[in-house]
């Protein structure tokens, strides 16, 4: 049975490390849904969070193979029940008239999104939440004209 798993790893900040990690996933046929990469509190370390769709056997192989990479310091799964998972989404919509903009803002407020910018013909919303809530927000905005979406992919931390 395939499930979504979130793998968080700490790697040394050496040139080409991200390519090595994603290359490993590609050649072993592990399916990446999203990847986020960013700094941690330790200067020479980088955190990579990868969302994969895999069954339990494959997940075990993923963790073990990642651990073999010399630049990888730590690999762990973020269990969905225990971890706080967050993603950022930027949603760009066509701007028509004030009334429509107003309804958009109402829907946004209910979902926890906020309008962060607007141009002549477009409005930009930002939402930072779980992937499911982001999906719901996007669905609720589908009745308007969505021009572009940019999602960051998931990151997460355990804080219990």
């Amino acid at each position: 049975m395939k499930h979504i798993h979130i793998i968080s790893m700490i790697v040394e900040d050496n040139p080409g490390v991200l390519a090595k990690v994603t290359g490993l996933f590609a050649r072993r046929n592990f399916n990446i849904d999203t990847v986020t990469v960013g700094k941690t509190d330790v200067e020479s370390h980088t955190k990579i969070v990868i969302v994969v769709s895999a069954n339990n056997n494959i997940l075990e192989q993923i963790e073990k193979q990642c651990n073999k990479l010399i630049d990888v310091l730590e690999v762990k799964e973020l269990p969905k029940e225990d971890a706080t998972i967050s993603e950022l989404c930027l949603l760009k919509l066509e701007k028509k008239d004030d009334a429509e903009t107003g309804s958009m803002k109402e829907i946004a407020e209910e979902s926890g999104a906020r309008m962060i910018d607007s141009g002549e013909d477009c409005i930009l919303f930002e939402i930072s939440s779980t992937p499911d809530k982001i999906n719901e927000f996007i669905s609720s905005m589908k009745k308007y004209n969505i021009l572009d979406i940019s999602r960051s992919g998931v990151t997460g931390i355990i804080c219990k």
Partner: protein
Amino acid sequence: MRGSEAFIKTMIKQGTDKTFGYPGGKLIPLFDDYLEFEDKINNILVRHEQGAAHAAEGYAKASGKPGVCLATSGPGATNLVTGIMDAQMDNIPIIAVGGQVATKQIGNDAFQESDMIGVTAPITKHNFQIRNAGEIPPKVTKAYHLCRTGRPGPVYIDLPSDTQMQETNADIPEKVNIVSYNPQIKANPDVIAKTAKMLLNAERPMILAGGGVICAEAAKELAELVELTKIPVATSMQGKGAIDERHPLSLGMVGMHGRKVANYASIETDVMFAIGCRFSDRITGNLDTYAEKTKIIHSDVDPAEIGKNVDVELAVVGDAKSVLADLVITMKHYIEKELAGNSSNYSEWTKKMKQYAKECNCNGDIDSHPVNPKKIIHEVNKRLGEKDIVATGVGQHQMYAMHFLRMRHPRTFISSGGAGTMGSGLPFAMGAKVAKPDVNVFDIDGDGSFQMTMQELGTCKEHNIKTMPIIFRNNYLGMVRQWLELFKDKRYSQVNLPKKDPDFIKIAEAYNLKGTKIARASEIGEGIDNAMKDEETHVLEIDVEEESNILPMLPPAGNLKDAFGGCMKSPGKYF
């Protein structure tokens, strides 16, 4: 000192005194500094960088020490790739060094530039590019540590020309600590105890020893375990030589072209203790039916191998030498306590397997004409000294060697398994002879394989490296032809080689070496004797039966029980 000098000094400190390499623009500083260290380290100039990579492998396989190959940037380094991939597949410790364009040119499609870090990332244990001369000693020391510890493997180092020229005062360290790398040596004692109990309580136990036993230098411990427990032992191809193949409990090799007694044991065993083996598809066949009736205890230094291909009852992570030593102590204790002089649960099985192992022994002394390949192996077997080394190319000749040679010690059989690289035979033999100048080194090769790297005859001649290539000439790419005969009704495509071209004896003579052409079985023994007496590399070209098939064989992804051919009574009927 400049970077290239620091590099050489670090290699020397790590115990390297021979390298295999080929120069180019981006290696000029390094080879220039070699001239200052001629009393401590020498490079053997090959004729193609692929020869350097395979020679480094042969050297490492024969000696247990890391082999080093050097190439210049661009096409020099890419010519190393096949050998690096081969080393990765068979866990051979080599350091592959590629010159690189100057750091400020990197990424600009400079002359002879190639992204070797990108190219070799999937086929190395680790790789890195050194941009600062001061980092050379610690990084090269790290490379050696990685390549030879835990599960051995190739490490590639990219060395830009300006880094080679840059001055540094860095010290050459004794060793380095790698935070994220700590292979487990000692296994959990509870798991060792469970292993011991499972084996002692089994009715039909067997041991499957892989290349890892040889990497860990654990042949002595394996022999102790077998002597103590009387459990029969089979090996994978890379494990050939881990146990003396003339031992009555040695079943030989398992797998696609393995001995029927070894495959029979794999089917019938109820508890299999696999150590240093990765359950390659060449030995399992169809994974759905492999070891159906068996509980597998899998021991390996690399935890990622355990559970990767086969389901495992018990995982024993640890270094093979340590695991086997602990197991011997534990089993001795249980045997004394629980058996107390009585025979084991499995003594009938042991007796039966010894009997079958004796029966499963073809007579290779066949005098038919054209020459039967088994005859050549028979004559080699007769003359093999205990520590003599046999390297092979890839193909039918390799499988004949694998199946019929009887090796007695580890590090005496050097053959490309996981990658199956044609052309590896001659340079493997070359590297092995450099590592072990006092033993005979044979290269069992094919007319297809030999042509891929035969230019290394030049290296053998110039550096007085005496090897004995024995070319099984059948005028075909035999293994592919065999598959086309057995599975495609002889629909031959792209497998024919010209009958007279090349004349391999003339090729040897072109390098001022000697060769002997043999067409009859009766001439083989004398031919090999002449090659052995020759002080230089001597090529034997032997015409063999063109369409012989190496059997028995498992059909691809087949079930072990469907092996056919050879001396099997009929498909699936082992004894």
